[in-house]
């Protein structure tokens, strides 16, 4: 049993992390917040060239020929970097929407009662008829409400969980960074147990979620995916909140990056029918 990442998987993850650090840094993030509803199309094509959307397509079809574990790793990086756009919908459209695999075309799809990035998309999947815009709480995710809920796709749920894992990991890093450098009462606040224990909780939730998400990527089992999403939602939402708390007053400002993580985690937690559906699926499995 070699549950850890292979060298190839590490290379896939590091490559995506490096691309995003170069092409979507703090400045690009602030620019995206300042111009809501717009996608950076050249970045989108660069993602396409790097294989983000064609990752799981067979090589014979011009894809990268990798599997769910690798997809989970690149989506985790996207989550970590707060990369905006209908990433899951476009990735899932790579096989049947021309231009999606290369990043030439952006694809939006209804998920539950919402559609993300509807107005900016080149192709909109079925089920978005009668969509009405709402004023999105997340400045980086424009949202429309749809009348009829869409059936959740397990792969979409898993890739969302991977993004949540990225958020949880990033929230832990940001909280620890701040706790090490911010001084009060003459010492770094991270020396206080009250802060330490918040940070420890962030790590524990992220690592439990990581084991669940990676395992679900290996088994592709519906119950494993449902478990992974519950743990990843919790790690991301509670993680971002605790990160905000560790940042104190600065965490409550628009300028800080922390609120963006929390708001995106809230958006993702709505996907795939929300947590309730996953809880019911896991309950049913107990008596199956």
């Amino acid at each position, binding site marked *: *049993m*070699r*549950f*850890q*990442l*292979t060298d190839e*998987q590490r290379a896939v993850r590091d490559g995506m992390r490096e691309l995003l650090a170069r092409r979507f840094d703090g400045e690009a993030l602030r620019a995206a917040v300042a111009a809501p509803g717009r996608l950076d199309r050249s970045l989108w094509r660069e993602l396409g060239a790097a294989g983000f959307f064609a990752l799981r397509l067979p090589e014979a079809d011009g894809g990268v020929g990798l599997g769910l*574990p690798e997809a989970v790793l690149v989506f985790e990086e996207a989550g970590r970097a707060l990369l905006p756009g209908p990433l899951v919908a476009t990735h899932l459209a790579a096989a049947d929407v021309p231009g999606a695999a290369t990043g030439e075309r952006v694809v939006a799809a209804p998920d539950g009662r919402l559609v993300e990035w509807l107005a900016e998309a080149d192709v909109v999947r079925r089920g978005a008829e009668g969509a009405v815009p709402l004023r999105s709480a997340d400045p980086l995710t424009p949202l429309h409400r749809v009348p009829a809920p869409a059936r959740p796709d397990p792969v979409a749920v898993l890739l969302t969980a991977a993004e949540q894992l990225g958020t949880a990991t990033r929230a*832990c890093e940001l909280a*620890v960074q701040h*706790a*090490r450098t911010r001084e009060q009462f003459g*010492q*770094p606040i*991270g*020396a*206080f*147990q009250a*802060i*330490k*224990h918040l*940070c*420890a*909780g962030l*790590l*524990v939730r992220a*690592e*439990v*979620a*990581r*084991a*669940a998400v*990676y*395992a679900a*990527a*290996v*088994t592709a089992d519906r*119950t*494993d995916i*449902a*478990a*992974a999403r*519950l*743990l990843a939602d919790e790690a991301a939402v509670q993680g971002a909140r605790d990160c905000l708390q560790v940042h104190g007053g600065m965490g409550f400002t628009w300028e800080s990056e922390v609120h963006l993580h929390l708001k995106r985690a809230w958006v993702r937690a709505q996907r795939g029918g929300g947590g*309730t559906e*996953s*809880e*019911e*699926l*896991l*309950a*049913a*499995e*107990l*008596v199956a």
Partner: protein
Amino acid sequence: MDLSYTPEEEDFRARLREWLAKVLPTLGPKPSPDDWPGRRAYDLGWQRMLYDAGYADVHWDASPTTRLIFLEETEQAGAPYVGANFVGLLHAGPTIAAEGTPEQRERWLPAVLRGEEVWCQGFSEPDAGSDLASLRTRARRDGDDYVVTGSKIWTSHAEVADWCELLVRTDSSAPKHRGISWLAMPMDAPGVTVRPLRTLAGSAEFAEVFLDEVRVPVANRVGDENDGWRVTMVTLSFERGTAFVGEVVACRRVLGELACAARENGRWDDPALRRRLGRLNAEFRALWRLTQWNVSEAEASGGVPGVGGSVFKLRYSHARQELYDAAADVLGPDGLDLDRPWVLDRLSSLSYTIAAGTSQIQRNIVAERILGLPKGR
């Protein structure tokens, strides 16, 4: 990322399963919790059966993955847990194996593996709990002996133990971590008094041990004099490794039984209860995956359990309490009946966030050793 087992590991699993199916029906009835001599005989007898079948040293010599399979299969088959062999197999034994001299290993290890001797642990003291290094039980050199005086607490199986792995202060002028030594003390030595301690679950699961001028040969010291803290850390890292594998398997079985009980008594119709059990299903599935992750990491690093054990223990001890709280929710008024299943387990689960390092201490460990946050001043 690969969750599959090698053909050799699958073969080990198949042979173990076959052996368990053959021998478990021959085991006598489990002794009652108050029958200490009976419990000792039962637990040692099981260890002897493991020894005869070639499984005795699975906790020590086998690869982490093989150990995982062993613990998973024995729990699933309903085999006895390590019981009275716990300290010998999982604390003192591995410490002696890692730090003892060849003579010490020869003297103590075969007796543990063959199910002949029981060990207990003399670490905590009334005034040294979370702050273990402040322990005050003193050992004074007198010729070839140490003369030990003090008291220990939370000592499981003290009533039936042959040996105690004992931490004593051998240099009271040194900084607290540097004046400690690790001794193997015979429990029948003059001056050793055991007083059972009743837990909130009603049974006497552990004891206080009073030591009054107890003579322990210097030859029974494992590791150098005053190096006992480092020697102890070896033991504690074993404790936080694969120690909970069987329990996670057991918790998943209990959760399934709980869901069936809820279906029978109608509580299943309550969506809040159902979803609570569904969430626990996610929790224990994730804990099983985290166990596999930690085992796989230990395998890759040559068998040394890492600090990942603290992450696991923090989450698991809390999840176990949640599980039995949910059981009480399923049982309703019957949850107050000590004769119903799970009610005593609920009481026992309260120790999990305290024993072997409280959750608060574990969070300090995670924050300081994994996240690198500064130590408090």
